[in-house]
């Protein structure tokens, strides 16, 4: 197969995407502020890759996923998507039928398989909804298609008349994945798709997602808070903190040489299964709470919790910039000078 060498635009490109939710108060609901859930995110997702987005709760990663799908109308910025014809459309500006059409290419797998499946509908209606609503296939053909989809996610097609309550959590998530695949999508956005599952089922589901990616040539935007899960599945990782991307790099680079102090802290929090190794590294305990996205601190939003913060960090907001030639980007003033090692032996900072 000839591989085209001409540089193409990426499948999905976010340009300075912002999603600010107004805070309303009082009898007349006037706006008293904004929660800056996503605040100027720029990312590229290439065909066939898996981009992992990590960060702690409330950092805006789920909002980012939902904004890309236009569940929310972004405040500003562009969501540039290269459609099947090769042209680029800005999803942020689309609406109505044009957006419905895009929604067949961009699909979502939800976090909670309990609430993401309508308990009142049998599986065939849940998986087949996108097909029947858009009039893609009907009747007997729909049944065949749903049976195929169920087989490809490892469910028995004879269960298609069952209701979601008859399935286990892992099976329900497979139904959710089958629903996402029903319209032959190109990009699947998985929003914490395995977080609600047992660890053993998580592994199965991750492997299933990888098999499906190979089989259908899918591109994944994989949102998670579990670094070990993301490491396993992602080609590239973007780390988010208070609505911004603070570091972006190929997976192995993030893990071997993080460039942002926040990433270092995240990595040092990953549990190590080997007790002998545990003695060598000491966890970095972040002091304080995540910054309030309605009132982020001036300068670098991470500076109140950062052990390396200087006066510059308190005053100037660092931008995401490429640091090394292999595409490692970080939003830290001191990315070049810091030598970070999440697994280093260090004295435990005092509790305060």
């Amino acid at each position, binding site marked *: 197969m000839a591989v085209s060498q001409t540089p193409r635009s990426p499948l999905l490109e976010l340009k300075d995407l912002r999603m600010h939710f107004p805070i309303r108060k009082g009898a007349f609901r006037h706006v008293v502020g904004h929660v800056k859930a996503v605040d100027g995110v720029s990312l590229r997702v290439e065909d066939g890759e898996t981009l992992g987005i990590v960060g702690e709760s409330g950092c805006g990663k789920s909002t980012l996923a939902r904004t890309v*799908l236009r569940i929310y109308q972004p405040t500003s910025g562009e969501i540039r998507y290269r459609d099947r014809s090769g042209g680029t459309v800005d999803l942020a500006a689309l609406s109505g039928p044009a957006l*419905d059409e895009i*929604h067949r290419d961009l699909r979502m797998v939800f976090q909670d398989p309990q*609430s993401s499946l*309508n*308990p009142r509908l049998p599986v065939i209606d849940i998986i087949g*909804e996108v097909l029947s609503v*858009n009039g893609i296939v009907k009747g007997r053909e729909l049944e065949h298609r749903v049976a195929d989809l169920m087989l490809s996610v490892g469910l028995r097609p004879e269960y298609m008349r069952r209701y979601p*309550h008859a399935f286990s959590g892992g099976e329900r998530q497979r139904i959710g994945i089958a629903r996402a695949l029903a319209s032959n999508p190109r990009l699947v956005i998985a929003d914490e798709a395995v977080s609600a599952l047992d660890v053993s089922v998580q592994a199965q589901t991750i492997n299933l997602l990888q098999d499906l990616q190979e089989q259908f040539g899918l591109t994944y935007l994989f949102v998670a808070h579990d670094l070990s899960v993301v490491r396993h599945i992602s080609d590239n990782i973007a780390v988010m903190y208070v609505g911004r991307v603070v570091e972006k790099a190929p997976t192995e680079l993030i893990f071997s040489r993080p460039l942002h102090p926040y990433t270092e802290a995240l990595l040092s929090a990953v549990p190590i299964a080997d007790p002998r190794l545990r003695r060598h590294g000491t966890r970095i305990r972040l002091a304080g709470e995540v910054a309030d996205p309605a009132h982020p601190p001036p300068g670098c939003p991470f500076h109140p919790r950062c052990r390396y913060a200087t006066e510059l960090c308190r005053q100037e907001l660092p931008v995401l910039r490429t640091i090394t030639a292999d595409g490692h980007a970080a939003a830290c003033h001191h990315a070049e000078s810091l030598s970070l090692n999440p697994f280093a032996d260090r004295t435990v900072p005092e509790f305060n």
Partner: protein
Amino acid sequence: MTDQVIALAPEAVRNSDAVAGQWKLIWRRFCRHRLALAAGVVILLIYLVALFAEVLAPVSSQTYDSRYTYAPPQQLKIAGYDAAGQFYPLYVNGYSMKIDPIALNRNYSPDPAVLIPVGFFVKGEPYRLWGLFDLDRHLIGPTEPGKPFYLFGADRLGRDVFSRTVHGTRVSMSVGLIGVAISLVLGIILGGISGLYGGWVDDVIQRSIELINSIPTIPLWMGLAAAVPISADPVLVYLWITVILSLIGWTDLARVVRGRFLSLKTEDFVIAAGLDGCSRMRIIWRHMVPSFMSHIIASVTLAIPTMILAETALSFLGIGLRPPVVSWGVLLQEAQNILAVSSAPWLFLPGLAVIVTVLALNFLGDGLRDAADPYEY
């Protein structure tokens, strides 16, 4: 071998449950709720009474006999012989009446010598059922028309309280049904708009509900009921009272519907339906409404007794339905004086009907509400 049986049984249950839809699962859960099931049967019977009131009542609600004012209830007896030695399978004793020389009261006591034979499907007063069928058979009554037959006693005009209670069932129960139906329509429309659109529309509707709820109910009813002309046709008064009751009753249902829409709007499966390309109407009717319909039915069942009690209260106060319309409240109004308490306590028997109905509806509603969430296990 026993192990196998045990292992197989849950699987069989699981399989039948797995393909059971919403209503089937609700019904199964409801059936496990014995009290609610019994209450459901009682309610069904009461509505049958309302439907076939003329057949069940021995006489019409207006038939009176001045010879038997305030006659006490008669006891229905089985198998007895009269003075002539004739056998009666089912009978009541007649009355012997004495006039108290001081108070000039009539005192009735059962006369064991007089036997009034009672039969089923006896010929009695002619009536027209549902305005369609001319009939004259009554489920129970004296075989000889005109003989005294007062199972619940008689009121001040010598009217049969039992027959009047049976006839009152129709009005009282239908006020509940029609009133709740009107509330439901108002509640679903206004609550739906409030929950779906939100914003200032939601504010306006919610503040209006709070305003309506803040007005003391009895004075409000009295004011509205006073607006119904005194000379109006009793049927019109009945309709007006029903509308008045539902104008206040819709607020609770509207809140339930609004709350459901609000919580469902952000539910993942509703968002997923939107991403699947479902239209707004399809999302509402296929995904949202079925999710809370069972709750609405339970709420409605719990709203009916409130309506019945409200009607009873209004009529008891004399500002609701008026004679000749017979409802339980109208009947209880006759038990308002001290005489009823001291010498004719049987006039309170229609109150028993109210208690039984309200209790049964509440049990039924509770059972339905518990059964309405078959997926929460």
